[in-house]
């Protein structure tokens, strides 16, 4: 088997990879922000909610967690307009899917975080006359945030990797850029030799930054 590696064709299109990588990070970032809002709201609703509310939240979580992300992407992208819904563009449609997806995972994370808040802290809040809403914002939320931070970092990394699936609906992220170069230069091996480390290194850098942030936040909390 003779195959000569040739990177020059890949370099010529490297802008697609850098721009794609930036978009991948952006997609993951927006999705986790929206996902956090969904996840936190539903976790609070679940923790204090009635049976029908809990059932509705569990149904959403179970459905999203038990269906492959690729199918969810197809269902939102092709299904919603077919059912007569709004026709978001591909990027919006993907962000919507990934937000719903991360939301379902984060409900569990936040729920565990809320459960782990020491009861004494809530009682203390009651004792100084805080309303339930004030207790949620000023007591439960900050304590929970510290508990769930490591899980949030992990969730962000896996969302970053999941953005590679956006390529199937033509969102120009990193894998789409890689596929574009692959189909236009036929240099599949060279493209993967470059793109695989781009994912690994970026994932590592993001994780290191997040771990650093975690540590400084936690240090602040202990003081």
């Amino acid at each position, binding site marked *: *088997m003779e195959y000569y590696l040739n990177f020059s064709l890949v370099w010529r299109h490297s802008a697609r990879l850098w721009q794609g990588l930036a978009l991948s990070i952006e997609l993951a970032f927006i999705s986790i922000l929206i996902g956090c809002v969904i996840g936190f709201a539903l976790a609070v609703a679940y923790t204090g909610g009635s049976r029908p509310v809990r059932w509705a939240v569990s149904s959403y979580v179970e459905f999203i967690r*038990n269906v492959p992300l690729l*199918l969810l992407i*197809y269902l939102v992208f092709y299904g919603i307009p077919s059912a007569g819904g709004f026709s978001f563009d591909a990027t919006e449609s993907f962000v919507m899917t990934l937000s719903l997806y991360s939301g379902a995972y984060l409900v569990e994370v936040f729920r565990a975080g809320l459960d782990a808040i020491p009861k004494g802290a809530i009682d203390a809040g009651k004792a100084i006359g805080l309303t339930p809403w004030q207790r949620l914002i000023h007591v439960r939320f900050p304590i929970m945030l510290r508990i769930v931070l490591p899980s949030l970092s992990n969730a962000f990394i896996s969302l970053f990797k999941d953005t590679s699936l956006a390529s199937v609906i033509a969102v120009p992220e990193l894998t789409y850029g890689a596929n574009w170069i692959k189909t236009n230069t036929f240099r*599949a091996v060279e493209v993967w030799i470059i793109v695989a480390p781009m*994912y690994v290194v970026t994932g590592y850098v993001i994780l290191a930054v997040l771990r650093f942030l975690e540590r400084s936040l936690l240090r602040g909390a202990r003081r």
Partner: protein
Amino acid sequence: MNGWWSFVVSTMPFLWQGLLMTLFIAAVVVAISLVAGVLVGICFAYGPWWARLPLRICSDILRGTPLLVVIFTSYYLLPFIGLNLQPLPAFLAAMSAFMTAHVGEITRGAIQSIAAGQTDAGKAIGLTFGQRLVYVILPQAVRRFLPPWINSVTDAVKGSSLVSLVGIVDLMLAAQQVIGRTYEPLPIYVLAAMIYFVINYSLSSLSRSLEARYAYVRD
């Protein structure tokens, strides 16, 4: 609704073989990664540094790379070092390695969550390392291990859908094949989503009953 049922009945036979392949792949990957991952995890927790270091590097690289990229690497890059694997073995190797890295981390986390006093107590009554592991540490670690591990099993079922990219007919490619004849993807996507849901929901329900069974030790 009648139309939907006749669609399901006429389509299921084509998806059936693919469904079996999906379950087969998930079962093989789960079995290999369970055995290998627990060994890797034990090594992470107790091994000497020269064993931990290479495993740590491999594990971090595997966990830091999208599964898709691991698969393409196994299929297209291994031939350059003389390993020209067939699609199915290439996929099973890639996905088992990927899952082993994850199970290794889960195992390490579970073992290290057991208080050091437990090990000391084992030493005090004269248990060997193997005995301490089997009778003291692992039984307690199991209940920390199970919830994240079951999640990873669901991930294996879902991740197996990537096998279609190397041309193995799993549920996903079987669905694409029906689509390639009819050119009507959407109903098939809905049906496939329902099938994945049924499999994975059964798995996660099973996991909850397992967890309940092993939760006999309270913190």
